[in-house]
């Protein structure tokens, strides 16, 4: 029992440390961060080596070898991709690189330390699985950076699979050779590991498939009545069976019940992901990262391995924090997301096909702006709240310096008082000549290369033209949707003053930049200033 206490202690400590570290990471490094922690979660490799190399029955060792292959693929591709990424962002490439080096070193130490343990006697299979891991992992790391989310999801799948297989292996090993070792605590850990591992496996495969737009995986959210009940039901049944098996680990039917748990976990993973639309995928991937980490923690408890517990806790906590941050930014309830009810937002009536919001990076947006000849800025209340007028002036200067025509289209009711935009733009010394009225600019909108919507919503909502029941019906709007490209800076997915959805945001030529207007415009200005563009 004392050992379990110390492992619990390690778990809690590692979680806190993980939370503390992750909070300090810059927003720009989130994707490489996930890739890195994802690679670390492949610490499952340690467990896999232990199982593959020890003096266990062949079946067990086969499971271990598969798990080892999966983990190695993870490690190899994960580290290689993370290494590629910091080059893409201009900020902090040096320190980010250090993290990668540290990770690789740590992994190497862990692998070697485990390998050289006396119980490991069958080296041949270990070598084979490791080589196979490299053979698959290297090509996997060479995917285009836009495919990184899918690859990350795939890697979670491998991590989950490894955990699930090791747990299964440990159970059957215990069943055949050391039944007395299947104590309640150990069994609970095994059951947890198996459920978490397999649900992460199938869930991540589904997520990767959706992102890669694989043909037979439905792209649109698949919802049905009572979905939440079914999902939770499956999980509850799996947990209940788990309790049964914990209490009676060695009964005649225990093995079948165990297989049943595995099956349910696999099913739950699928059910969890099918109601999710493409736009929520990043949050989902982050959560699956967390689950993968937790399954590694469970593995650590099963194998009595503090290293697994630590790395898994780090992975779990980073995934958790990222998910919460993302949910907040998207204005979604975190508990909603946890119980797989991602699809509820889509219940509101949507005109036409349900489309996803496309997000652009600051670098991409800056490039779009730089290549334009006519940019029309459409400010709204969001710009006022953020008090972004001075940053907007800096952007104006950067663009006009490059010979780009910049006009500010002021809608008569933009903001919350007459002349709201005027007083702010005047404060920033935007010349009166740059301001245009709605009637004046609308005929030119089809020639506009980029319509930069800064915190404006209802005044550019196309529903005003035709949606008879809409509260804004009949109000003349600025024809932002007619521009060649629309970049919209918005605090969140919340509706504007009129409280209705705006289909401008999901148009094919619209890209979102989420965040506070001052911060986002400030980042855009930096792109022009610091040598990112000339």
């Amino acid at each position: 029992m004392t050992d379990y206490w110390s492992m619990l202690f390690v778990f809690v400590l590692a979680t806190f440390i993980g939370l503390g570290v992750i909070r300090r990471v810059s927003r720009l490094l989130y994707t490489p961060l996930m890739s890195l922690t994802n690679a670390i979660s492949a610490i499952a490799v340690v467990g896999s080596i232990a199982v593959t190399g020890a003096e266990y029955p062949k079946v067990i060792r086969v499971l271990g070898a598969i798990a080892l292959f999966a983990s190695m693929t993870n490690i190899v591709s994960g580290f290689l991709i993370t290494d590629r990424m910091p080059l893409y962002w201009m900020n902090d490439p040096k320190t980010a690189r250090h993290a990668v080096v540290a990770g690789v070193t740590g992994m190497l130490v862990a692998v070697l330390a485990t390998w050289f343990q006396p119980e490991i006697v069958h080296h041949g299979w270990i070598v084979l699985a490791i080589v196979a891991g490299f053979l698959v992992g290297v090509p996997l790391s060479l995917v285009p950076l836009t495919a990184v989310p899918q690859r990350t999801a795939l890697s979670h799948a491998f991590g989950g699979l490894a955990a699930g297989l090791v747990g299964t292996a440990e159970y059957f090993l215990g069943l055949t050779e050391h039944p007395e070792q299947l104590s309640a605590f150990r069994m609970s850990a095994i059951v947890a590991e198996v459920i978490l591992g397999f649900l992460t496996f199938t869930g991540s495969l589904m997520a990767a498939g959706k992102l890669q737009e694989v043909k037979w995986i439905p792209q649109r959210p698949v919802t049905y009545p009572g979905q939440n009940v079914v999902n939770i039901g499956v999980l509850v049944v799996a947990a209940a069976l788990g309790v049964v098996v914990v209490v009676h680990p060695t009964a005649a039917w225990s093995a079948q019940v165990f297989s049943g748990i595995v099956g349910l976990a696999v099913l739950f993973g699928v059910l969890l992901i099918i109601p999710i639309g493409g736009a929520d995928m990043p949050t989902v991937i982050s959560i699956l990262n967390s689950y993968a980490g937790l399954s590694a923690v469970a593995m650590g408890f099963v194998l009595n391995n503090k290293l697994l517990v630590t790395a898994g806790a780090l992975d779990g906590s980073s995934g958790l924090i990222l998910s919460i941050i993302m949910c907040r930014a998207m204005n979604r309830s975190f508990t909603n997301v946890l119980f797989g009810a991602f699809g509820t937002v889509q219940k509101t009536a949507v005109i036409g096909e349900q489309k996803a919001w496309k997000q652009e990076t600051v670098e991409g947006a800056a490039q779009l702006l730089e290549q334009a000849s006519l940019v029309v800025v459409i400010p709204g209340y969001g710009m006022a709240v953020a008090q972004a007028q001075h940053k907007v002036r800096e952007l104006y200067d950067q663009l006009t310096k490059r010979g780009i025509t910049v006009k500010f289209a002021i809608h008569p009711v933009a903001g919350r008082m007459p002349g709201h935009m005027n007083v702010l733009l005047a404060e920033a010394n935007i010349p009166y000549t740059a301001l245009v009225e709605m009637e004046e600019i609308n005929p030119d909108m089809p020639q506009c290369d980029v319509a930069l919507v800064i915190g404006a919503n209802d005044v550019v909502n196309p529903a005003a033209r035709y949606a008879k029941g809409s509260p804004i019906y009949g109000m003349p709007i600025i024809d932002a949707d007619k521009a060649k490209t629309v970049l919209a800076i918005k605090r969140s997915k919340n509706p504007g003053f009129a409280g209705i959805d705006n289909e401008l945001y999901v148009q094919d030529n619209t890209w979102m930049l989420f965040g506070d207007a001052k911060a986002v415009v400030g980042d855009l200005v930096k792109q022009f200033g610091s040598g990112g563009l000339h």
Partner: protein
Amino acid sequence: MKIGVPKETAANERRVALTPDVAGRLVKAGLPVVVERGAGEAASFADEAYAAAGATPVATGVETFGQSDIVLKVQPPSTQEARLCPEGSALVALFQPSAEREAVSQLAARKVTAFSLALLPRITRAQPMDVLSSQATVAGYKAVLLAATATGRFFPMLVTAAGTLPPARVLVLGAGVAGLQAIATARRLGAVVTAFDVRAVAKEQVESLGAKFLELQIGEQAEAAGGYAKQLSEETHRRELAFIAEHVKDADVVITTAAIPGKRAPVLITAAAVDGMKPGAVIVDLAAETGGNCEVTKPGTEVRHRGVLVLGPLNLPSTLPLHASQMYARNISSFLLHVTRDGKLVVDFDDEIIRETCVTHAGEVRKS
């Protein structure tokens, strides 16, 4: 259908219901316009300008009323003017029916269909017709200019060889349209602006103009339908008064804009609170017309209370007649185009805008 614009007869009213430009637009839209001679003079619009735009000048008010199918005014008609309206004609003006009982009953007796733009619902479709907002914008802006002229201080900060002059500290009470515009104008002049409002939504709006919001924990829901402030309970009102008394102490300028539609304006600054203010401070009370937010306000004039100057201006929009008329004319013509079809008045009570603004129709008084 002929539109008539008489000269405003109310004292100090310099605005006119239609400017030459807007009159021209209506004429082009097929609605002939007659304008009394001199109607736009106080707002700098000459008779010739109206004529050039296609409107017909008419010699007297009596004739203007007599020839019109629909009369457009700023101020409500006096009882005599109401009697001048032809039977079954229409009239649009800006007024609270409860304050014009006599004129309203006169209009009903003459079977006039009268509309008051003060009763427009605050919906998106009615925004182009919203006179209350357009005129309040003028009031808020003008209030700051009055204060800047009346005070002995600079508004912006100045560091000079003759010493450093700190910026004026301006406190705005009430963050509605007038209050927000006052905040913006004071900021343009360089003052340090703080604002207070009982409605929670006002905080973000005030801060979006770069001013500081003073927060008082109000337990109850202080915002009524249409975005107006509600009357507060006794207890909360007491706390509000104490809070304001505390904050006016270091204000150089206080601009109060709190109004409750159809009721007496709430008292926000007690006489005792004025006693606590700095000598040389200025209060501009925009609610003087409906009783005043300050206990010592005298509507229509200025009062010196122990070194503090309290201004209670009436009809501030009229003091910026050119632009106030321009905005009023656009508002009223948007309304006009909404209630007419093919040159005829269409009184469709299913339409929210018509239903809410119609004060009298077919001899009946609908709003009082």
